[in-house]
């Protein structure tokens, strides 16, 4: 062992020490925001990795909304400042970044997440640090947190009306429930299965199929759907297939000649953005159920589309349902902050309930005590130009069932965040607030 060597290793050790110090330094960067006159808004959407394909758009929408609000003079006399981070489609990183946004950047609220697992990952962080998350995507329900506002659809705001439509208008009697193997399709299909059975559909008329994420070879699954559909009863596919796998799925449908007039597919995860990657002519007439379509014909929506296309400098950019959810969520937050007169999360959370803002489908959406919003349900048929032709719309707004009455475990649960109940999973049978907190 030479002296030089020792010196060197000490240098190396120095580097190690430096790293440790830097870790501490990053953590302890003082929050500059305080007192500078801006209100920080966190944007927690993946900009790289597998989910970037869907989430980047939402980040852009938020930037646009914040810019617009600032043009209107900001909020409470202060300018809004967007803090964008990239959780890189990595679930533990979501939790880390959420913590960073709240405890280092001191944001007033966070708009973010897409997948259920990312929401589950950040949920404890928001509850611990008492901040607000706006979650804009349709999801499986079975959750209601004090600190999360769910602006996407619960299963009864999307799946059940879609199935009703098919049963009534297409006289469907046989059902294929096809989904990607994760919690949203699993839960949605469980709910649908129970729902269909309650409507008298027999076991042998339901086929359930799960595929892995990013499944790209659909040949025999499509063939087996075709076979299932040839039993003489009208058959439909209810698809909870996740984003990435849809393009190859639809391409295979088109190639194997399954037309919507024979076996219609109704999808809950396929919107304008997903269709932008496909030649939709072979898909004519397949369906999707959402709470918003770009083709909704009203002035608000037209103005929004024009703004969005101008903001992205792309006259062909499409809009979709989760974007609308952010529009609603952001408007609600602004309103609640104005109502509360502060951005203090505890007060804003209380002020949120009951806030109603116009949605883009024509009408008002209101924040309910279960932290979900009321929504209209629209069914659209895919057209040759990648847009949806709206063929059905629920007459009124639908209130979310965050706890599905079709699932055994959640049948007796309700959520109500108003005091005195203030509980996300109140069991009406036992009369107790089950689980966490109390």
């Amino acid at each position, binding site marked *: 062992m030479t002296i030089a060597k020792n010196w060197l290793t000490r240098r*190396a050790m120095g580097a190690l020490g430096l790293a440790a110090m830097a870790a501490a330094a990053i*953590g302890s960067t003082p929050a500059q925001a305080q007192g500078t006159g801006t209100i920080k808004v966190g944007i927690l959407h993946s900009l790289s990795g597998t989910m970037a394909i869907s989430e980047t758009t939402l980040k852009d929408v938020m930037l646009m909304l914040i810019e617009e609000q600032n043009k209107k003079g900001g909020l409470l006399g202060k300018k809004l400042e967007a803090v964008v981070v990239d959780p890189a489609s990595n679930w533990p990183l979501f939790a*880390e970044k959420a913590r960073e946004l709240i405890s280092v950047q001191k944001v007033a609220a966070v708009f973010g997440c897409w997948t259920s697992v990312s929401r589950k990952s950040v949920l404890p962080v928001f509850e611990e640090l008492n901040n607000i998350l706006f979650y804009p995507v349709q999801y499986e329900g079975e959750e209601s947190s004090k600190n999360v506002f769910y602006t996407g659809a619960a299963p009864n705001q999307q799946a059940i009306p879609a199935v009703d439509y098919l049963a009534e208008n297409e006289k469907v009697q046989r059902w294929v429930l096809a989904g990607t193997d994760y919690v949203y399709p699993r839960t949605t299909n469980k709910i649908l299965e129970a729902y269909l059975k309650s409507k008298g559909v027999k076991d042998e008329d339901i086929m359930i199929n799960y595929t892995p994420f990013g499944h790209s070879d659909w040949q025999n699954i499509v063939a087996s759907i075709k076979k299932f559909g040839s039993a003489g009863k009208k058959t439909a596919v209810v698809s909870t297939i996740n984003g990435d796998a849809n393009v190859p799925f639809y391409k295979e449908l088109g190639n194997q000649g399954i037309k919507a007039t024979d076996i219609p597919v109704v999808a809950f995860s396929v919107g304008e953005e997903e269709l932008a990657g496909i030649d939709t002519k072979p898909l004519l007439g397949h369906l999707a159920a959402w709470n918003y379509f770009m083709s909704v014909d009203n002035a608000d929506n037209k103005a929004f589309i024009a703004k969005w296309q101008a903001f992205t400098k792309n006259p062909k950019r499409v809009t979709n349902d989760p974007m609308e959810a952010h529009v609603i969520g952001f408007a609600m937050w602004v309103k609640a902050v104005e109502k509360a007169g502060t951005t203090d999360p505890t007060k804003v959370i209380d002020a949120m309930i009951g806030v109603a803002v116009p949605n883009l489908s024509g009408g008002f959406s209101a924040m309910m005590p279960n932290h979900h919003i009321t929504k209209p349900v629209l069914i659209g048929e895919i057209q040759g130009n990648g847009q949806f032709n709206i063929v059905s719309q629920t007459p009124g707004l639908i209130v979310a069932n965050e706890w599905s009455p079709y699932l055994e475990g959640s049948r007796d649960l309700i959520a109500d965040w108003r005091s005195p109940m203030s509980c996300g999973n109140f069991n009406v049978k036992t009369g107790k607030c089950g689980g966490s907190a109390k």
Partner: protein
Amino acid sequence: MIPLRSTILTLVLVLGGAILMAVLNLGTAESSALHVPTYAVSLAGKYLSFAMLALALDLVWGFAGILSLGHAAFFALGGYAMGMYLMRQIGPRGVYGNAVLPDFMVFLNYKELPWYWHGFDQFPFAMLMAVLVPALIALVFGWLAFRSRVTGVYLSIITQALTYALLLAFFRNDMGFGGNNGMTDFKDLLGMPLQADTTRVGLLLATAVMLCLMFLAARFVVGSRFGKVLVAVRDTESRTRFLGYRPESYKLVVFVASAVMAGIGGALYVPQVGIINPGEFSPANSIEAVIWVAVGGRGTLTGAILGAILVNLGKTYFTGALPELWLYALGALFIFVTLFLPKGVIGALDRFRHIRPVDEVPPEKISEVTG
């Protein structure tokens, strides 16, 4: 052989750093300039868990020449064992208030706990599993692979197949491990609430101590006679065999030991990040771990720890500061390191003084394929 003084320095810095953070977190007021926020404590704990994975990897790659592209699988398995324990600890505080079944089982209509979940409510049992399961898989896999002399890139590729197969398996909801969502929303560990600052600080300290113990153990192993044979196996396996050693046994022992280390790292990682899910098995994670080792300096042990901390620090910083561009930075870093710092940061510091220590890593043996 790792020099004594660098060993001491590593120990002092890891332990000292952790203790310093602990004191500054618990002992100072939040408004104080010296205060270290809990956020930083958790981050440091996460880095040190990763450092364990890197250390484990350096042991097999740096000293036995086994480039495992599936080491994160052992890390994740350890993490799952801990996750299962934490899940059971939630008890009736889950959203459905079921005392036995975790939430995800309730809404997937499980009627009772699957057999392989039994015992995980006991901390010692769970920790035993966190060590035993990775060890067992490494043993079976290693025994098959080394016995039939699968080496070089072939070995790398099948380790990747291993972690990929596990990834797919854990994604399946039917497996009973929570599918894609994995496990989350943990409440407490050994009766201590996970969200309390003291628990977090305790976990950081435990991680730091464990890392130091592992580092010492690894140092002892590579400095021993056993370690010398390992290096011989790494450099020329056939010659070592002709000398009468059984390279496969040596490799198997170190591979299993390394898997155990990774498993412990995973078990400590989970309570600090609050989630375990199949994403941890993704081959990209394993490759990233290899990169930590390469950045720090392969075959130096210290370098593995340094690399893991540096790269993750960079990732934390850049995903916040340059959210749109950080992948460029990360990608460029890997290229830069391989091209210009073949021996990593530690090696570069050495070269800075134009001196090559005798116990440095010898040049990589020429691959079997290129001839």
